[in-house]
């Protein structure tokens, strides 16, 4: 199983503005000039590898879209602006694919905004299956394809569309992938999913504030997390910011780490980065989370708890994680 992140920003696409890009370039060149004065043998590529990610490309500006694949099947989670790059990729690399499966966690704009640019929707002979827990799944799609918001009406794409209303906490199949929706802590509401295949599991937990955290509070939604090989978790804010934004529906790195350690999750990737945060701010948040994690692990070891930690990082648009 492989997970690819096509969009990792939250709320609103956030392209890097030319002024900010120039600022990054100036900083990189300044550091490279200083390095050259030391007669360092590093070449440009090796030098770039040493720089923090916010100076060499950042985290990406497209909104939520993930792709989970096995050798034979593909599940797309959410249709944020990142789905456009996925659509381009599929057109080039898998032009004969006829069946597409998209699970929608909820209908906030940042999770739907790329769907009008998903090319298979306009191609006769293709089938695009939409899955969702919400009763108004089809209505949410119809709203997207309606004048004056968008020039192509829903009836043009409806022959290609297949709607599947799925039940909370009951698995459904997409080929060899088993998908079970579980409720997250987000307004309107939002349904994450546990995706399993061939003994591997992904807990998709975006968007969530992670208000319910103890096993008792999570109740029927606890299996979403238990012993997952990978958890994709919402870290829109720093811990301090999340405390100030109660009921905004988004969480932070330290909360995801605590959940992961308790539930035996092996790896976590954080996404849904704040659209108003610069790449440097996101990087700062990642460093703060590292500091938190490092101290927590030392306390746990001193307390006689398992020294086994969790692999984690802040997600970058376009990255692929093999399980």
């Amino acid at each position, binding site marked *: 199983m492989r997970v690819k992140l096509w969009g990792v920003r939250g709320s609103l696409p956030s392209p890097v503005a030319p002024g900010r890009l120039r600022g990054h370039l100036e900083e990189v060149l300044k550091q490279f000039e200083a390095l050259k004065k030391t007669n360092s043998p590093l070449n440009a590529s090796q030098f770039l590898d040493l720089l923090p990610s916010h100076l060499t490309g950042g985290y990406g500006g497209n909104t939520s879209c993930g792709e989970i694949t096995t050798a034979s099947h593909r599940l797309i989670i959410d249709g944020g602006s990142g789905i456009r790059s996925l659509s381009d990729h599929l057109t080039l690399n898998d032009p004969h694919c006829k069946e597409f499966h998209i699970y929608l966690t909820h209908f906030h704009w940042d999770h739907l905004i790329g769907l009008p640019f998903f090319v298979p929707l306009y191609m006769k002979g293709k089938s695009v299956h939409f899955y969702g827990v919400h009763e108004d799944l089809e209505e949410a799609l119809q709203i997207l394809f309606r004048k004056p918001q968008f020039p192509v009406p829903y009836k043009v794409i409806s022959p290609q569309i297949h709607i599947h209303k799925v039940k909370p906490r009951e698995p459904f199949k997409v080929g060899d992938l088993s998908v079970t929706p579980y409720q997250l802590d987000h307004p309107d509401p939002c349904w994450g999913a546990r995706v399993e295949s061939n003994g591997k599991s992904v807990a998709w937990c975006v968007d969530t504030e992670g208000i319910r*955290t*103890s096993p008792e509070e999570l109740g029927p939604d606890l299996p979403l997390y238990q012993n997952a090989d990978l958890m994709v978790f919402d870290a829109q804010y*720093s*811990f*301090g910011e999340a*405390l*100030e934004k109660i009921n905004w529906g988004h969480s*932070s790195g*330290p*909360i995801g*780490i*605590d*959940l992961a350690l*308790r539930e035996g999750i092996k790896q976590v990737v954080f996404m849904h980065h704040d659209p108003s945060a610069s790449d440097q701010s996101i990087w700062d948040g990642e460093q*703060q989370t590292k*500091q*938190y994690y490092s*101290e*927590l692990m030392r*306390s*746990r070891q*001193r*307390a006689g708890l398992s020294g086994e930690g969790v692999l984690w990082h802040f997600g970058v648009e376009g990255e692929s994680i093999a399980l």
Partner: protein
Amino acid sequence: MKFKALVKIEKDRTVMVLEGWLDERAELPELDEPVKGDLVLDLKGITLVNSLGVRNWIQWFKVLKVQRDVKLIHCSPAVLKQANTLQGFLSDRTKIESVFVPYFCEDCGREDQLLVNIAKVGDPVHITAAPPELKCSSCGMKMELDLIESQYLTFMQKHKPKFS
């Protein structure tokens, strides 16, 4: 380690001695009546702090009817390190009065702690105080600070506690 709380209501203050892990399972004490005078929390026995515990801790302060200051004394290294890392750990009305600063000896491996009274450190807004030096009680060598030195007492700059 199970969380424990011992509450002593005195004439002009309430003292709570908290021990164990401040995590999502920690049952912070409920009080039937508003806290009289200052609330003093002795945190020497807190051995682990996680973010879920801190979030509950912040909620707990909102429910407690504290009329005056909340003073944290004898903060363990676990409390000190996460107070420096997790913004929001200290509210406006909460101030740390003393902390156990952790040290280790590079020569013999011994670990130790030194109680630092924050009020004596200096101006909290422009804090530049270096951590005190400590000699190893086993081998007599100078011990190293078991913290990132630049972040020693970072919480003071974030929260600017008031001193009487």
